[in-house]
């Protein structure tokens, strides 16, 4: 008794609806909403979080993200060019660097800068934002390098040949013809990289920092301890991340559909 595709599709749909309803009902019956509100949505007690959540937390998260991205982008561009260099040792170096920093957790790199450098070089004490910029920038540069290299290589060879045949030197063809087109290609993945960095900046707490240097997560944790509002401060911090990341996500998608149209 073989099932027709139509019949199978109908059964699948019924199954999905059933699971959905069962889960919702269980949640409604089993969850103690009073405790739930106490732990997560205790919005009455959190007014002391403001305006610091924005003027300190959000501001620092944005700050760490921007400086890390700026450093990561610069280094990533250098690595991408090294990866396409004709001198082989440059390629090996870049490949080794990229594989290394893609393969280890960002938090280890942060610790290395925060605690390793002062130990290895006594007397060298960088401000925490510099450590954050270097550590997160290094990690993201490895991803950015691969993105940029792929972008540069995605520009058809014919574009360079046409430019050269018009008498443009190689560097001019690169700047005027290749990079502008590669830029459009890499915008969506670079935007995603910024989103990842925004979230990774929450790791900065591991270095220990002054209250004025708290980013969103650290600021929320601090509020969690002092306010007695359960995890509510973290919920607020989470919402702040979404305020940054969702618009970026939308922008990235917009770029994506635009390049898709341009390349049709």
């Amino acid at each position, binding site marked *: 008794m073989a099932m027709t595709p139509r019949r199978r599709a109908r059964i699948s749909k019924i199954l999905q609806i059933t699971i959905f309803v069962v889960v919702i009902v269980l949640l409604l019956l089993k969850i103690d909403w009073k405790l739930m509100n106490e732990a997560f949505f205790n919005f009455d007690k959190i007014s002391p979080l403001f305006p610091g959540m924005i003027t300190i937390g959000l501001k620092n998260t944005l700050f760490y993200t921007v400086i890390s991205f700026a450093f990561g982008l610069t280094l990533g561009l250098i690595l991408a060019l090294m990866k396409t260099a004709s001198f082989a040792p440059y390629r090996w170096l870049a490949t080794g660097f990229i594989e290394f920093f893609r393969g280890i957790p960002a938090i280890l790199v942060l610790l290395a800068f925060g605690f390793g450098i002062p130990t290895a070089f006594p007397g060298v004490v960088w401000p925490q934002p510099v450590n954050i910029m270097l550590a997160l920038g290094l990690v993201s540069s490895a991803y950015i390098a691969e993105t940029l290299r792929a972008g540069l290589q995605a520009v*058809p060879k*014919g*574009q360079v*040949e*046409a*430019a*050269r*045949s*018009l*008498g*443009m*030197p190689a560097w*001019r063809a690169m700047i*005027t*013809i290749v990079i*502008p*087109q590669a830029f*459009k290609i890499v915008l969506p993945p670079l935007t995603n990289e910024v989103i990842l960095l925004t979230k990774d900046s929450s790791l900065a707490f591991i270095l220990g920092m002054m209250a004025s240097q708290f980013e969103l997560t650290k600021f929320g944790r601090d509020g969690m301890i002092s306010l007695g509002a359960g995890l509510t401060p973290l919920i607020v911090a989470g919402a702040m991340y979404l305020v940054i990341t969702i618009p970026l996500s939308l922008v990235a998608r917009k770029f994506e559909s635009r390049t898709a149209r*341009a390349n*049709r």
Partner: protein
Amino acid sequence: MNETTNPTPVFQAAGVSITGLRKSYGANEVLKGIDLEVKPGEVVCLIGPSGSGKSTLLRCVNLLEQPNAGVIHVGGFEATDLDIDLDKMRQKVGMVFQQFNLFAHLTVMQNCTIAQTKVLKRPAAQAKETAQKNLDRVGLGAFGDRYPDELSGGQQQRVAIARALSMDPTLMLFDEPTSALDPETVGEVLAIMRSLAKAGMTMLVVTHEMSFAKEVADRVIFMDGGVVVEQGHAKDVIGNPQQPRTQDFLKRVLDPTHVEIAE
């Protein structure tokens, strides 16, 4: 600098002379000693089976490919001299590609002005004027604000010709300019090439359009396996080929429905 042989010269035309040109990719020798002369204002069509080295030969002329041996003169330049300014030479040699290769991020007008301003350092207004003149020449004067992907293949190729002409080249290289086109747009591109030829441009054209070659070319060169097999007046080479390889190739091109597949 160069006189032209054309009775009504519009272009300042340069000649090309190639002697003993060899080019290998690894162990694969693609050009096995080519000698070729194109006089100023002359139109030479290059025909031959796919893989015979036609594109490679054309790309050697403006040094997009570095020859392994041989001497190439283009106008006043010895192109193969390692000390010459290649960019300077390429400014004078227009190239039109099978796949058009218009700059995808620039408008039609910008495609035609970018090298004028960045390479020749012409003022923007002069560059625009020159571009407009050449877009008018290819019948696309009203399309300056369009982007390449908004044009048909034939229109894109006409823009590519206008872009090359905007540099005031003394020689034009065409690599199968109509091979990527829909059949109904081939004619418009050939028409422009015909008018260029009439106006005295030196042209080296790789093509499979035999009727175009017969009508427009001063000379036709048949290449196979990296050597020049036969050359002469267009009507002779196409209408009355002497070499068996040329005869076989032309039979396949001119009457593709009756080609016999060898065992």
